[in-house]
Structures are given as C-alpha cells and as structure tokens.
C-alpha cells in the first residue's frame, strides 16, 4: 500500500470513530448548554448503552429474530433503556443540586460515574462483553481506500441522527423551548417554558444518542467492558470543547475533527500515544481558543 492510500485509509477510519465521538459529544454539549454542568457520568452512560445493545441483541438472536431486524431493535432498546438511566440520574442526583454551585454537581457526576462502572462490574463481570453477531469486514474498495459496510452504517446512522437532532432543535416547539432554556432558564420559566421537563428531555436525548454510539462501537469493535466509558467520555468531552461547548453543530465538527486527527496520529506517531494526542489537543484548544471552533466568547458576569 502506498503512503497516500494509507493516509486516506486513516482518514476513513478516523471519520468513523469521529462520528461516534460526535454522537457522545452531543450529550455533553446539550447538557452543558442548558445547565452548565459537565456531566462526567456521560461516558458511563455510553458504556451502559453498549452493554444494553449487546444484551438485547443476544436475547433477540436467542429468540430467533432474524439478523437484519436484530440490530435496529437492539439500537432502539439500548437507546430507550439508557435514556431512562439518564432521566433517573438527572432527577435523583442532579436536580436537587441545581442551585448548589458548581463543585457539588461535578462531584456528584464523579460519584455517578463510579457507581455506574461498579454496577456493571458487579452485575456483568470484569470480562469483555462480546457482541453476539460477528460483523464481517466486507466492504467496498473506492480507489485506494477500503470502506467496510459497518463503517458506512456508522456514518449513515450518525449523520441521520445529527440531522434529526438539528431539525428537532431548530424546528419543533420543544426544540425552541430547549434553546430558550439554554439562553436564560429563569426568563424561560417566566414565559411558560416547562424548564424541568426540558432539562429532563435534554438528559434523555443525550443519553439515547450516547447509547446509539455505544451500540455502534460495540458492533464495530466487537466488544465492550466496564471501563470503556472512561476514555470514550473524555474524548467526547474533548470533542465538545473543541467545537465550542454548548454548541450542537460544534460538537459534531469537533468529534469528526478529533477522530481524524487521532486516526492520523495513530498511523504516523504510534498507537500508544493516541490518547495523549487527544488531551494535548484539549489543552491547546482551551489555551488558544477556549470558546472552541464554533463557540462564542461569553464575558464573565459581574
């Protein structure tokens, strides 16, 4: 393989991973946009989604459901269940702290993240959970680059969800309520926006998107374990910051950018420093352009 084709191959792989980061990053960015909380437990939510998808797919296959129906059903089941987890986390852990300053919710999020990790460890064990369907590496060759069908699927699902989310936020009344709440929760509640319901919905949406990302990744890599959420969560957070936290198109852009840079770094620097690259990017963005690629600079309120 020539080095040029290797370059394009890394870009394709990077795009695939980047699409997943973008889906997770949406959850971070939406929650931050609305209640200014870095939801540390979001990576674990993604991991839970991957587990639920795997378990659901196993159960469906056991029940004799055909393979082509299994995957969409598993995605739906994972999205629904994980959405419930997000909803409960918001209602029980975050809502009581809404007026409690910044440190308390952040520490709560750390606690939730440990709780979810350990919950999965205790109930599912420390071993990797293997996805019951072996996905072939079949695909098409476009010139010098090979794109696997599963990569196309990931890109297609991610793109569809992002477009759907953007339409939801921009065109529906609930989406308008979300944008209102993000701008000014107090004012929104005064003009009759059901702020609590909007916040709950944001958590559910973010969690479901993360769950879809989790299922797609577990199909792509074939396995998941209880620690998977930690790094993925950090990467996705980096993506959200990169794009400008609180900004939905920014999260998409940031995710894809990070995925591609990481893919190239893995190809040219070495896989073991792949994770360092993401953090270095995070630090650099925060120093040089803290508002992110698409964000707007907000002055401190006095």
């Amino acid at each position, binding site marked *: 393989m020539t080095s040029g084709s290797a370059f394009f191959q890394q870009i394709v792989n990077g795009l695939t991973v980047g699409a997943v980061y973008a889906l997770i990053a949406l959850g971070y960015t939406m929650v931050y946009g609305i209640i200014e909380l*870095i939801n540390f437990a979001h990576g674990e939510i993604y991991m839970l989604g991957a*587990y*639920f998808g795997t*378990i*659901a797919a196993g159960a469906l296959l056991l029940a004799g459901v055909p393979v082509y129906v299994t995957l969409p059903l598993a995605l739906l089941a994972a999205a629904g*269940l994980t959405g*419930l*987890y997000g*909803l*409960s986390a918001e209602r029980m*852990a975050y809502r*009581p*702290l809404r007026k*409690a300053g*910044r*440190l*308390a*919710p*952040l*520490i*709560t999020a*750390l*606690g*939730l*993240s*440990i*709780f*979810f*990790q*350990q*919950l*999965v460890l*205790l*109930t*599912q064990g420390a071993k990797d959970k293997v996805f019951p369907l072996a996905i072939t590496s079949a695909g098409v060759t476009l010139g010098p680059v090979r794109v696997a069908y599963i990569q196309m699927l990931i890109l297609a699902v991610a793109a569809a969800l992002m477009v759907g989310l953007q339409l939801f936020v921009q065109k529906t009344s609930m989406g308008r309520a979300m944008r209102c709440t993000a701008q000014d929760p107090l004012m929104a509640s005064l003009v009759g926006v059901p702020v609590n319901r909007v916040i709950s919905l944001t958590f559910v949406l973010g969690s479901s998107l993360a769950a879809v990302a989790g299922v797609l990744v577990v199909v792509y890599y074939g396995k998941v374990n209880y620690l998977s959420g*930690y790094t993925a969560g*950090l990467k996705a*957070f*980096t993506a959200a*910051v990169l794009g400008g936290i609180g900004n939905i198109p920014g999260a998409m852009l940031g995710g894809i950018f990070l995925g591609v840079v990481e893919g190239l770094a893995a190809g040219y620097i070495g896989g*073991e*420093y792949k*994770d*360092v690259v993401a*953090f*270095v990017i*995070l*630090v650099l963005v*925060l*120093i040089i352009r*803290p508002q992110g690629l698409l964000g707007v600079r907000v002055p*401190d309120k*006095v």
Partner: protein
Amino acid sequence: MKIAKGLADNLWARAAGWTAAFYLMAVPLLGAGRALWVALGVAALQAVLLALDHLTPGARQQFRRVVAGGGAFAGRFGRLPSWVRTAAPLALLAAVALSGLGLGPYTLDVATNAGIYVLLALGLNVVVGMAGLLVLGFIAFSAVGAYTYGILGTQMHLSFWLALPLGGLLAACFGLLLGLPTLRLRGDYLAIVTLGFGEITRITLNNWNSLTHGPNGILGIPPPSLFGFTFSQPRHYFYLVLALVALAAFCSRRLERSRLGRAWVAMREDETAAESMGVPTLRLKLLAFMIAAFWGGVAGVVFASKQLFISPESFNFLESVMVLCMVVLGGMGSVPGVIVGAVLLAFLPEVLRGVAEYRLIVFGLAMILLMQYRPQGLWPSTHRFEETAGEASP
C-alpha cells in the same frame, strides 16, 4: 379535599412509575427474576417516603436540615479558648505517637498508608479547599515525586532526605508548568485539563521505557536511612509519616489565617470582586497549585521509599478521585476535617474487607448522597461559618 386526593393519586402514580422504570432498568443487568428485588426495594423506599410525607408534611426537608445542621461540633470547637485549641491537636499527636508503640505491624502499615493519604489530602486541600480550584489529576504530582526518588535513588543513590524536598520541588515545578497556561480557565474547564494532565503523566510513565521501565515499574528503591540507621520496619515509617503529617497540618493551619490564606478565600468566594480589590489572582492560583503539588510530591517520595517499588498503575485516576473524596468528605478548606476524611477513607477498605467488591460502589453512592445531604463535609471549616454568618447579618 378533592385536590389533596388528586395530589396523592398523582404521587402514588409517580411512585408506581419509578418502580416500573427501575425494574426495566435492572432487567438487562440482573435478568428478569433478580430485577424484581430491585423493583421491590424501590417500591418499599417509595412507600416509606410517601408515608413519611403523609404523616409529617416536609419530613424529608426536616431530615435534610437535621443532617446538614450537624456541623455544630466544628463551630463549638472553634469557640473554645485558644489554649484548648492549641493543646488538643498536640495531645492527639502525642496519643497517636504513643499508640505507635503498642500497635502491631499490620495496623501500623495501614496507619502509615493512611498518613500518606493525609499528606496528599492536605496538599489537595490547599488548592481545592482554600483556593477553590478543582483539580482532578492531583495524583500526577505524587507520581512526579515518587519517580524522582525512584529514578535518582536507584541510579544515583540519592539520599532519601535530599529526595524528599527535591521531589516536592520538582512536583511544584510541574504545578507551575501546568498552572501557567491553564489557570486562566474557568473552574470546570480547569478540572478537565488537570484530569488530562494526570492521564498524560500516567501514559507517559507507561511508555517511556528507557527512563521509567514502563508498566514494569521501578524495583529496588532504597529505603531511607539516617546516620547509619536504615528504616526497615512499619514502625519506622509510621513515625516518619506522622512527623510529616504533623508538619503539613501545622503549615496548613498557619496558611489558613495568613494573608495568603485570606486572599485565597476572597478569590474562592468571588474571583471578580477579589481581583477588583487588588488581589493578584493569577499569582495566588499559581502559588496554591505549587504548594499543593509540593505536598503531593513529598507524599510520592515517601510512598516510593515505603513500597520500595513503584509503577504507573499506582497513580491512576481513581487515586485522584479518592484523595478528592477525602477532602470533600472531611470538609473542604478545613484542616481537621480533611485529616478526619482521609483517615476514615483510608481505613474504610480494611473495615469493608469482607465485602471488598462492593467497596467502590458504596464509595460512588456515598459521594452522591454526601453532596445532597451534607455538601459541607463532616467537619466543615469554621471559616465558612463566619463568612456565611457575616452575610446573614451585616
């Protein structure tokens, strides 16, 4: 009457909804049969809460208030005559030192580990508690100290007593390096960047084989020795750590009411206001970072000299979270609180030995509950009381 009944109906419906939701949530993890137990537990809890609300309206708020109001002890301690406040810690120190003579080697070993955690927590308390900057990768500073002694001690036979300040100073330099570009960031961004710094440190230690031996770690670190006397028994380390803890606690206590400490508090409470009053916030933040990192590094050197072996795995994210929890549990900004928190959490694994696998899940739950019911910690800082009291009656 009709409204009250409607409300009750609504509440029952809500309880049923949550029970069903938790059943659904538990099914994939536990299986349909065992998930029933979770649902049963949730239903029972809901029933108790509903019954409480029926019996005494606002019982939950009352419970919250009782739990949150338990800081009276700290307030009372702060009002004791000053000689008592000076004598009490000295008496405690003497008692702990005396008990070191009677305890067995195993207990002493656990106590020494607890002491190292106290050092770490006191260090982190400077930056989180006093200056109000959330740092999530604190253990990286400890790694710097540990590897300083690990590498210099094995390769250049550097004395432990020189490594102790050197490791601390090097860690402080890292604090400066990390702080310079990042301290302009807002609180939660800073938290993430420090987390990233912690990860970068660990990954680098794991991969820099020529210097750190990667995941294999460094073996055969020399124990400390003093005038020909070599530290070998748990008791020796116990007294070493006790002395350092006493020093760190003394320094923290002195810092608290100093010009510096007061400036930190001003910055923590309102950065913009502090800055407009002429408090040089950036320099103060850097100083807090460096002092905290110094103690982290010192703790790392002691850790390396006690374990005689270090590897990157000893400095993972969970350790950072652990130290943060000690500070939060005890009470941010309160020196006695932080010591209590660190000792409690360090001894907790020994107490929970029988149910060791549940230790961390309890830990996560405890963090969540603590933030809801007692965010100020077990032994909150009296400083904070004064500040809020001043606010209420100007």
